[in-house]
């Protein structure tokens, strides 16, 4: 079956999609050297971050694909822009669980919104979903430290990352490894490390779980910090994944990452996080070999993926539903918000993705599971509260200026404003009918009755702000904007 590895760059606004099929593996991972305009730039910024601001997209569209990825890897924040730990936590009492949790959530969401190092923050979210630890069991302070760990090591070496996660207090609490001792082995962590974090179900035996658990003994938590206690570690000989020795936790991790099945497991995970679900076996194999040859280097592996032809293929373009966090942060970045609405954690929970609180150790199911009528209304009403009904929401909405999106159009020409808006926010991925409806809304020629004065007047200076807010909300609530 023919599967193009090139994005359809014609002016046809149809969203490109081709079904899964065999792939030209030799060219799939080759660096993409084709046309690079606003659609490609916006795609890269959505996947390797939380979406570009209109200025970012315009600036990136001046580069080529390889220089654009260079820019993503070299991005930095001015010193002092962010703190690595939410400062409020030190003044809150233990009883204030809710406020402590919210403080960590807002601290992280703010970083997603404002950091120039968008890829590092996106990787942080990828690992949060992968090593899915929840604040329902692990305290907010530990969660903040775990998030910072993903931020620091998320693009480093996977072996090192896994060794750090094994010692991470939030994880030691979450999967009970702090209770895993020579006297009373607890297999929870050993099992999930293999099933969910590194190998996948069916690629290890129950004996491997038991023997692995022995290797992971000795790590506990004291005063919120990891503590290794040699007296609790089982120093005996174990046979783990076919190898026999007096393995420690780090030995077990070394053995795990050397499994070819692990290399394919991580390759699949990264492809699903950055390109598309259910990637072709040839593609997994190609990425697994980049990962293995690089010595488990995540920056090199992710870099190869987002530089590739397949990353820009029609099958990848706007092919996956945005997660609630991608949708919300992307929206805020699009409309130029400079701060996170304080109610956002709760709004995200209604959309189905409360940050720091994945539903199970498997993380969020994602894909179609994001989308149902309740979560869709939560997404619509997030946009509406933020943009359309500004009067009711001024308390919680950050200072946004949706009219900046159409300023270049100038004046009161509804056609031109809509052209401008769908180009800036959706890279023209809409049909003519949609444009017509949006123009009719601005002109007041749709049949709707309204209690708002704005709609009884012709589109002009008296109702400009209201109308612009309305049309921006309608545009961002289009189904295509739910796709990443």
């Amino acid at each position, binding site marked *: 079956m023919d599967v193009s590895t090139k994005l359809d760059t014609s002016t046809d606004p149809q969203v490109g999609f081709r079904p899964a099929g065999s792939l030209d593996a030799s060219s799939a991972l080759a660096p993409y050297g084709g046309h690079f305009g606003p659609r490609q730039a916006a795609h890269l910024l959505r996947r390797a971050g939380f979406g570009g601001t209109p200025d970012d997209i315009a600036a990136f569209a001046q580069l080529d694909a390889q220089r654009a990825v260079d820019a993503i890897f070299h991005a930095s924040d001015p010193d002092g822009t962010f703190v690595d730990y939410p400062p409020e936590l030190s003044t809150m009492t233990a009883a204030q669980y809710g406020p402590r949790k919210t403080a960590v959530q807002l601290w992280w969401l703010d970083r997603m919104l404002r950091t120039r190092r968008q890829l590092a923050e996106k990787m942080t979210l990828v690992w949060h979903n992968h090593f899915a630890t929840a604040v329902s069991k692990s305290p907010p302070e530990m969660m903040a430290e775990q998030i910072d760990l993903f931020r620091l090591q998320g693009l480093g070496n996977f072996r090192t990352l896994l060794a750090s996660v094994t010692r991470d207090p939030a994880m030691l609490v979450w999967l009970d490894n702090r209770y895993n001792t020579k006297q009373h082995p607890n297999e929870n962590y050993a099992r999930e490390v293999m099933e969910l974090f590194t190998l996948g179900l069916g690629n290890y035996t129950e004996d491997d779980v038991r023997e692995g658990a022995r290797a992971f003994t000795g790590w506990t938590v004291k005063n919120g910090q990891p503590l290794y206690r040699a007296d609790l570690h089982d120093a005996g000989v174990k046979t783990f994944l076919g190898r026999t020795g007096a393995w420690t936790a780090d030995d077990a991790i070394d053995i795990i990452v050397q499994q070819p099945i692990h290399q394919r497991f991580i390759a699949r995970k990264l492809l699903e996080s950055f390109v598309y679900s259910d990637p072709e076996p040839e593609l997994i194999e190609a990425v697994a070999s980049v990962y293995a040859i690089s010595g488990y280097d995540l920056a090199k592996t992710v870099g190869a993926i987002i530089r590739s032809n397949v990353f820009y293929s029609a099958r990848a373009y706007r092919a996956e539903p945005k997660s609630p966090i991608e949708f919300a942060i992307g929206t805020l970045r699009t409309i130029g918000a400079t701060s996170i609405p304080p109610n956002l954690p709760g709004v995200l929970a209604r959309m189905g993705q409360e940050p720091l609180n994945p539903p199970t150790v498997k993380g969020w199911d994602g894909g*179609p599971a994001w*989308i*149902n009528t309740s979560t869709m*209304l939560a997404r619509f009403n997030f946009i509406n509260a933020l943009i*359309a009904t500004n009067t009711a929401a001024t308390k919680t909405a950050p200072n946004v200026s949706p009219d900046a999106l159409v300023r270049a159009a100038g004046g009161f020409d509804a056609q031109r404003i809509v052209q401008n808006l769908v180009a800036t926010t959706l890279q023209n991925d809409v049909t003519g009918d949609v444009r017509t409806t949006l123009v009719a809304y601005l002109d007041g020629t749709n049949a709707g*009755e309204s209690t708002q004065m*704005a709609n009884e007047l012709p589109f002009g200076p008296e109702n400009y702000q209201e109308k612009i807010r309305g049309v921006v909300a309608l545009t961002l609530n*289009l*189904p295509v904007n739910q796709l990443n």
Partner: protein
Amino acid sequence: MKRRAFVSTSLGVAVLGGAMPLGLAQAALAQAAPLAGATADPGNVLVVIQLAGGNDGLNTVVPYSDDAYHQARPVIGLDPKSVLRINDRIGFNPALAGLDALFKDGKVALLQGVGYPNPNRSHFEATEIWETASPDRPQQYGWLGRYLDRRYPNGTKPPSPFESVALGDTLPAALVSAHVDVPAIGALGAFSYNTGRDLASKQSAGVLYDGAKAGGSPYLAMIADTAREAYHGGDELRAKIAGYTARATYPTDGFAQQLKLAAQLIGSNAGTRIIFVSLGSFDTHAGQRAQQDRLLGLLGNGLRAFYADLAAHGNDKRVLAMTFSEFGRRVTQNASNGTDHGTAMPIFVIGGAVRGGVYGDHPSLTDLDHGDLKFATDFRSVYATVLQSWLGRNPSDVIAGSFPTLPIV
């Protein structure tokens, strides 16, 4: 027929004098012809009430005549004179006056000592266990979600999008299903495409979603469909329930108001059959009495208004409500006049069709498992009963393992 008479006679005794041993009731049931699932009335409604945070069972149904109770709880124990007596051993916390009234009407089955083997004391994991009915291994879908998946196989859809509804902002694990989209309705106002005063914007959104074309990514078609359903869903729901007027005065708290909405869904033509409601925050590690008594008051008074409203509309016999909590609490009070996470608890099954009474003995306060109550009835027996006798579904379709049903409906 014969067995039915036997059971209700026995229950008459239970209500008046004491508890019918569950084992005896189960044995009686086992002799009879099985309650054929298919005979369950299709109009039956199940309301699941979560008492989130771990409700302390011993201060809910109080073993007031047991010295061990008063020794374990010198400060937070209830005065025997204050409890609403059920029999010479147990009585309701006086905050549960509303539930006591329903009990005296014969509408409440009190199941004592409900739990499961190797109980989990983590809120998160224990809640998952109760909501997925799977203590031994994690389950992706909830017990009611699996019921819905069996009921609507192969892409069939419920006759109404509001057949199953979670009242609250988030979908509980119990209702997570592979194939059926269960709406979570926090408030009617929020279950709507809200554009404030700008109705023209709302109108245009309707044009956009109705006209959204399939094509592109497979998700685009699905998103467009869902957007259309979501956009119209709020108005559709409001239209369906518009003709209903409550015939009881509900308390003004959020829980009672959710029950009011539940009665409205049940009493109108929304086609609602399963409702999930949650009442928090029972995690009473400190200063338990004030907090738990307040919550039990909300529970009892809300339920009394709910069943008064249902009865006034002739719906009380087709509505079965059941409570659950992720765990009970420890027998001995802690240093902060609260209680820590424990194990077994009482469950209430309420409704006009319920065979009211006390089922099972109160768990012993001296024969403990590491300071915690031993359970007598597995919660999956309660679920199996609801599935078989109320929803007309073979329990083994939904719950792994075999659990005897209880003669409570």
